[in-house]
């Protein structure tokens, strides 16, 4: 089903200009077989609707122009015709069947999740994505990397916005081209929706359930999408970036990731013996806080009560250290407070807890070391 065969001369050259296909006025054709099928289907329905619209609106315009009282037109008296009613019941049904047939074929294709070469688990949480490569021991979080100063004009003058404003992340999902990649999509908290327009993949991430989707990208490149289901305050700030690499490049990348994961475990072990100074902890703590905590608890620690409590002067941040560590590491079930134990390294955890206990006038003077976190939680 090539779109050029659908070109009906009625509609004029404007709509058939090849620029139309990739303009900002229209759906993307995408970079997979499936996305091109979806695009063709979209154009088919659009053209059919346009033709019907031209006929109906044309007839109405004709009436409005020629059959008007001001021209002294005498109204006809007809007001029913079973023949005509049958005609405009049956013809639409035939057109609909013509649309339903290709739609059914495409749908069957899109829902065929068998025979994949690579499986990636995609987990949404407020407000980031987590990617886990099955059987590869590679996993990481992916969150917005646009600096707050670019988007938050409420608390001061905004910085100039970059090219990929709000569509850039710290760790992109990396997939190979020309391989069928299957996504298993789920969520840790509320419903999210993983959407990459160039793949024509949009699948809800539902807590407690796993949905499937797949793609097979035909050309390398960087493709951007966003969470599509309202998931709370920062729904607009959880983009998706996918880098599609040539097969051998992908294999190299995957190998490097595995080695990095092993190195990280070693570093974690080494950090247990390390004693950091307050300044070191505060510096690392601040940067960790800004990426992991500030969205809810705010850069100034004042939170957005009641859903997101203040940390400044909070009984937890200036009270018992082990309780504080427990909440940061294990989260608070049934609230938006996530368990950061699996998202941050021991060193980052120690630093961010130290930061929270000493920033914004909390001034407890407490130092939390990597080994303290380890001891308090057994992580």
């Amino acid at each position, binding site marked *: 089903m090539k779109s050029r065969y659908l070109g009906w001369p009625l509609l004029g050259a404007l709509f058939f200009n090849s620029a139309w296909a990739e303009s*900002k006025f229209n759906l993307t054709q995408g970079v997979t077989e499936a996305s091109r099928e979806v695009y063709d*289907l979209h154009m088919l329905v659009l053209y059919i609707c346009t033709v019907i619209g031209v006929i109906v609106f044309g007839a109405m315009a004709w009436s409005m122009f020629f059959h008007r009282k001001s021209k002294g037109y005498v*109204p006809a008296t007809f007001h029913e015709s079973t023949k005509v009613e049958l005609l405009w019941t049956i013809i639409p049904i035939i057109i609909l069947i013509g649309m339903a047939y290709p739609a059914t074929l495409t749908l069957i294709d899109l829902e065929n999740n068998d025979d994949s070469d690579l499986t990636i688990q995609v987990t949404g949480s407020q407000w980031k994505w987590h990617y886990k490569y099955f059987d590869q021991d590679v996993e990481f979080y992916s969150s917005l990397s646009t600096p707050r100063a670019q988007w938050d004009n409420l608390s001061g003058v905004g910085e100039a916005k970059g090219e990929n404003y709000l569509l850039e992340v710290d760790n992109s999902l990396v997939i190979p081209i020309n391989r069928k990649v299957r996504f298993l999509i789920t969520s840790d908290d509320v*419903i999210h929706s993983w959407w990459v327009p160039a793949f*024509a993949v*949009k699948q809800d991430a*539902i807590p*407690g359930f796993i949905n499937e989707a797949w793609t097979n990208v035909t050309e390398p490149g960087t493709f951007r999408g966003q969470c599509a289901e309202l998931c709370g305050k920062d729904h607009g700030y959880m983009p998706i970036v996918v880098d599609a690499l040539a097969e051998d490049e992908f294999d190299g990348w995957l190998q490097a990731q595995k080695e990095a994961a092993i190195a990280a475990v070693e570093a974690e072990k080494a950090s247990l013996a390390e004693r950091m100074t307050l300044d070191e902890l505060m510096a690392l703590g601040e940067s960790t806080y800004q990426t992991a905590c500030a969205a809810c608890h705010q850069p100034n620690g004042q939170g957005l009560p009641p859903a997101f409590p203040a940390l400044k002067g909070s009984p937890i941040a200036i009270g018992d250290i082990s309780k504080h560590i427990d909440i940061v590491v294990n989260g608070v079930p049934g609230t938006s407070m996530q368990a950061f134990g699996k998202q941050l390294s021991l060193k980052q955890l120690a630093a961010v807890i130290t930061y929270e206990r000493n920033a914004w006038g909390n001034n407890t003077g407490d130092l939390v070391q990597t080994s303290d976190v380890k001891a308090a939680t057994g992580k």
Partner: protein
Amino acid sequence: MTTATDAILDHHEHKATGIKRWLFTTNHKDIGSMYLWFAFIMFLLGGSMAMVIRAELFQPGLQLINPDFFNQLTTVHGLIMVFGAVMPAFVGLANWMIPMMIGAPDMALPRLNNWSFWILPFAFSILLMSFFLGGAPNFGWTFYAPLSTTYSNGSTAFFVFAVHIMGISSIMGAINVIVTIINMRAPGMSYMKMPLFVWTFLITAYLLIAVMPVLAGVVTMVLTDTYFGTSFFDASGGGDPVMFQHIFWFFGHPEVYIMILPAFGIVSTTIPAFSRKKLFGYSSMVYATSSIAFLSFIVWAHHMFTTGMPLLGELFFMYCTMLIAVPTGVKIFNWMATMWRGSISFEVPMLFSIAFVILFTIGGFSGLMLAMAPVDFQYHDTYFVVAHFHYVLVTGSIFSIFAAAYYWLPKWTGHMFNERLGKAHFWCSLVSVNLLFFPMHFLGLAGMPRRIPDYALQFADFNMWVSIGGFAFGLSQLIFLAVVIKCIRGGEKAPAKPWDGAEGLEWTVPSPAPYHTFATPPKID
């Protein structure tokens, strides 16, 4: 003797004065007016919220409000427009017009009628109060669990009780409409002689009775999930968040038709009047309306194509949804055929009706596109959907309500409205509403998700146009307010039947319609 007659007449026209008249009234015309005013106030309020949203979206970056308050505004905007503006406006029209169209002296259950109106202000007070008590609902008007349960901001209780009261009001209103139409038609007015307006309200009322209890059930489950430890929608307790969506949309899809079927009734009244030709295919209109109502119960999951339904489920809901295009098409073709070879004139009600047919059809086209499951994966939850349902609800439902208001204002007030101002209202609304909603199609196709407070740079110029259209459309509605106030206060005296092509019993009584009409039922041949 004279005094006795006066006393009887006086009793006949008896109404309390001041606030008591409105609080205790059981008169269908008074209650209809209150519903219409209430709806208009809510329309302006919900519209103001939309204008704050559009102001925030005027440029990329957060300028005016934080994302959480943005979500509160989108949620309450939706709730107010659906339950506070469109539905009460239609109930107001039903109250005013159904008794006069079927030759009945009043609604069948006048005290119920008073109550179903007067609980509405309380419902919306509860909803709006939440803004000042820890934050309004921020989970979207569709309140998907678990965002509205475990992860809500504490507004869930306000939301649930407000919706319960709105639902009770709607059910009582619907019972009243059904009882009135079935029992109080003038002698000789068989079902197939009823004005189509009355037919569409009858079918709408049945839809309301069928689905409002479902909404009441789902909000109650949300309430107990949030506060009483149940797990209807929580997988960790054996529940299912997707079940929420099934129950919600089993209410939600018929609800969509509740908001459009009365509009079909209105334009089926106005288009013949200003085409000076009978409605084409009356009986096919009745059957088409009934088919749409029936189909509305078996298409709900087309809102959920991306939730991971099995293939067969997707196919079933796709086919059923596409089928709705057939009866809807029949209606549009019938209006076209009614205008064809009529003797058309372009008074304000007709302008709004013609705009309704064209723009509603555009909303129907995008609806057909959305029905195609494989392509819906791309459109779902984008601005394409926002464009679609605003074409259907604003240029559909709300334009039809304007058409109705202009059509019957002379009957209600006894004065003709200012034609020039009315036309100014129409043209300003028409241009601005398309500037507001048409570019949203492009935004959605280009990949902008809905319900986001900030967006990537490639969406910037369309958003700016959309915002300008939004402000212009909002301000244009003040012209309507001016028209109505002027019309109430004075103007050219309206004859009993100000439109030469109009038909129906309501035009046989004087303008303004006396406080009590058809104390003796008219005889229909």
